[in-house]
């Protein structure tokens, strides 16, 4: 009831200065539009760049680091208990790369409710033989189904199908960089040599392109059983267990737990990829800084129009106060004007921001290294809209605060005496 009167007075003053208030509101609209667009675009870009790495990276990786055992036999000897020993040139054991008991570990991991999926892997350093030249490379033995499910492996295979890898014995999917160097086509046979000198023929069933040139120049994928065959190891031989979680943030804690439980090394994604997060957060920071700067400029627009209004409406303010409106009422009137400009401008800004980012999201964006991306990436995170709305209200409130306080302090006697 009481606020209705205040609001009516505010809107009457607004209407009397419609053009200027529209310009002020447009300032807010513009800045919120830009804020939303910028953040959505940056967010999309961040996701794209992060996913380039993160999609293909397990949340937790269990493996055995090659290192000499920290407990040497002499330490266990009763005869030398309490004595010091020094051993030079300790060498690691030969079988250390293998994760022992891998089948049981995989079973246990699959039963863990935090775990979305488990993909075992063997990594084998090899040479690709091209005539007289050997190219160094790495072959990963993978579980094709798990790899498709957890790391969207199929998205990166540009020629051929992942299923062929599973169905054709002794087959390989080659990195596009390697394939170019070797001048091979899908269907050709190639020869590889392991570090132990074993030669092995493989049939090329596809190419893949990860978006990372360095990786595409050395990497090849075969099935787990193929690597076991190449190395002459039993079917339980696994050097890496990759784990994907439902909640990535649990990775550091769970990595520690699994490492202890399964007596292997365990590393989490946060540790291996900290540099990517830093890049994203700096890009995000810049977007926020630009957005907030725009908003502050819009805030000055509101500040100006309010000051002008107050200057023009001195008489009205004086008579309102003389006829019983308190300083607080006058303050509320001008804060209402400021917030109306902010809310209307801000709401339009949110709509236009959504529209503009949707338009940008339609612009074609083709890059050879990202086969799955066809248009500019946009992240429609509701968080951006919430932050935009909150910021627009806060800035307009602050912009309205000082002029409103000035208006509330106007002494009607000064004005009336001045006439």
């Amino acid at each position, binding site marked *: 009831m009481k606020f209705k*009167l205040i609001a009516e007075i505010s809107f009457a003053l607004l*209407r009397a200065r419609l053009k200027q208030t529209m310009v002020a509101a447009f300032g807010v609209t513009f800045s919120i539009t830009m804020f939303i667009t910028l953040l959505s675009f940056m967010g999309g870009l961040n996701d794209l760049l992060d996913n380039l790495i993160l999609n293909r990276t397990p949340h937790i990786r269990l493996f055995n680091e090659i290192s000499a055992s920290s407990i040497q036999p002499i330490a266990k000897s009763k005869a030398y208990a309490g004595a010091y020993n020094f051993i030079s040139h300790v060498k690691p054991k030969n079988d250390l790369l293998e994760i022992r008991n891998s089948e049981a570990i995989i079973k246990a991991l699959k039963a863990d409710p935090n775990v979305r999926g488990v993909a075992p892997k063997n990594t084998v350093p090899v040479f690709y033989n091209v005539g007289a030249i050997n190219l160094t490379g790495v072959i990963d033995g993978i579980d094709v189904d798990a790899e498709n499910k957890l790391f969207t492996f199929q998205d990166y295979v540009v020629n051929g199908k992942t299923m062929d890898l599973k169905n054709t014995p002794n087959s390989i999917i080659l990195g596009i960089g390697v394939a170019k160097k070797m001048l091979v086509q899908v269907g050709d046979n190639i020869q590889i040599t392991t570090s132990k000198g074993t030669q092995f023929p493989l049939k090329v069933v596809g190419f893949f392109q990860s978006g990372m040139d360095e990786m595409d120049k050395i990497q090849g994928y075969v099935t787990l059983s193929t690597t076991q065959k190449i190395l002459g190891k039993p079917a339980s031989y696994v050097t890496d267990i990759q784990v994907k979680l439902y909640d990535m943030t649990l990775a550091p804690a769970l990595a520690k737990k699994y490492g202890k439980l399964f007596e292997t090394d365990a590393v989490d994604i946060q540790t291996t990829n900290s540099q990517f997060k830093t890049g994203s957060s700096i890009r995000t920071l810049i977007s926020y800084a630009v957005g907030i700067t725009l908003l502050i400029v819009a805030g000055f627009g509101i500040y100006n129009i309010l000051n002008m209004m107050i200057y023009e409406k001195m008489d*009205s303010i004086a008579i309102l106060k003389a*006829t*019983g409106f308190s*300083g607080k009422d006058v303050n509320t009137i001008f804060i209402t004007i400021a917030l109306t400009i902010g809310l209307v401008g801000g709401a339009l800004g949110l709509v236009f921001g959504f529209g503009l980012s949707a338009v940008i999201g339609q612009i074609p964006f083709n890059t050879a290294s990202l086969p799955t991306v066809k248009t500019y990436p946009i992240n429609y995170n509701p968080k951006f809209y919430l932050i935009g709305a909150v910021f627009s209200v806060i800035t307009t409130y602050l912009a309205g605060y000082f002029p409103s306080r000035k208006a509330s302090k106007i002494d009607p006697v000064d004005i*009336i005496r001045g006439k």
Partner: protein
Amino acid sequence: MEKKVIEAIGISKSFHDPLTVKVLTDISFSINAGEFVSVVGKSGCGKSTLLYILSTMDTNYEGELLLDGISMTNKKDAELAMVRNEKIGFVFQFHYLLNEFNNLQNVMLPGLKLANLSPKEVEHHAYQKLKILGIEKEALKYPNQLSGGQKQRVAIARALINEPLIIMGDEPTGNLDKKNSDVVFNIFKELAEEYHQSLLIVTHDLDFAAKTHRTITMEDGKIMSHGLSSS
């Protein structure tokens, strides 16, 4: 004894900018309910200053002010605003109508602020006040569409809307020609006689003053004559 609507007890005021000047010295007087009082005096003798104090807009004074028997001294700003809203009606030399609102709405504003009545009732009252002042036809026009005299009458209607204890005017006819002054004077007279409205009007117009119930004469910040028949 008649009820005193307003009573000033030893009110003094000085301005300190740039030099300390005492503008009002020990002003004491009272106005009874239904009285029509005028204040006259030479330019600069402190009439407006006194009126601003009596109207509670200026709180920077010494002495005591009673409105309706209640002390206004040391009240908070928000409380004084409520007192002005409810008990005092103002008419100034300038009309101070809000151009964003039509005349009817201008009259209604203090009534809506008081909120003792529903907006519909306030509108009805405002219409009646405009009728008393003979300008009900201009109700839906805007202030800038009226003549000076008409604007002043709308301002008087606005002063009347909350049926105040007292109406105060600072040269309300100062901007008007003879004919319009007479119209406004007759309205005041009618309010006093028919509605027993108390009025305190500052004026330069001695003819105007002579026709009121009582004339207070000021000189150099002091009251020279209370205009009472006995004194």
